[in-house]
């Protein structure tokens, strides 16, 4: 079991091509923890913006009458991948992990696999 800080550190250290990560509460849009990012890439802005993404998808699923749950959301930019992984169970409801990857260095399949492992180890 890892706490927020350890989990984020592990995401940045062990996932090839990761440049930033955040644990975000999408009921409020605020980040519980962030790591990486830069002066031009504010992870708190990303947390608030991606909260809208997650909420929009959940609302759409509700309107469509879909019963399943979101496991993850992938956003592909021209030079980055953004991975959003919703945290399941154990009081982690309403949280997601957000990972920024440099697409030249990242292996998407591996990143997704590792993020899933980090999520299952995370204790908030």
């Amino acid at each position, binding site marked *: 079991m890892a706490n927020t800080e350890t989990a984020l550190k592990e995401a940045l250290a062990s996932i090839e091509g990761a440049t930033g990560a955040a644990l*975000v509460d999408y009921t409020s849009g*605020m980040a519980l923890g962030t790591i990486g990012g830069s002066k031009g890439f504010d992870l708190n802005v990303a947390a608030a913006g991606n909260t809208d993404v997650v909420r929009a998808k959940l609302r759409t699923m509700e309107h469509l009458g879909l019963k399943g749950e979101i496991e993850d959301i992938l956003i592909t930019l021209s030079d980055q991948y953004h991975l959003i992984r919703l945290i399941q169970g154990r009081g982690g409801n309403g949280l997601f992990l957000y990972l920024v990857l440099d697409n030249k260095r990242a292996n998407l399949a591996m990143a997704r696999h590792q993020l899933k492992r980090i999520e299952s180890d995370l204790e908030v």
Partner: protein
Amino acid sequence: MAAEAEVLDELHRLRARVPQLTGALAASVDGLVLAQDTPGVEPEGVAALTAAALGVAVRLADATSQGDFRELLVRGTDGYVATYAAGSSAVLTLLAEDAVNVGRLHLEGRRSSSRIGELVEEAAARPEPVRTRSPTGNRSRAATEPPPPLPTRTPRGGARTPAPNTTTTERAGKSR
């Protein structure tokens, strides 16, 4: 205070960017409304309460050595009231429904409050504090006209030539 139109524009833009806002209001730190967009809520009351809450918040921050006042967030069961410092003489108060993205509320509120702070300070720095409603930006010409009366709250027993034998309480009652 001048710059009312510009501040109001900023409030409208803010409400467009954060659709969960139910109201936005800019006030001076002493509780006078500068500009407001608060349907269904009485802006004067909110501005006055903001000033009172601000007074406590400033002292609380000071007493616990947290520096100057930055912002204040109140959460009710049905929504939020957020107040952000806008420069040294004004504040921005936002009302938002419970479903609001607080992260976004803070981001947009902080950005907007610093913009409003600039507008208010620019207006205060102008030689003649004339209210300019024309968007031309040609403010020096407006200064040749006599300035309209500023929207000030009349102090008790105010200066507006009360009838000699009316008491202050009677006057307050009549002005409502």
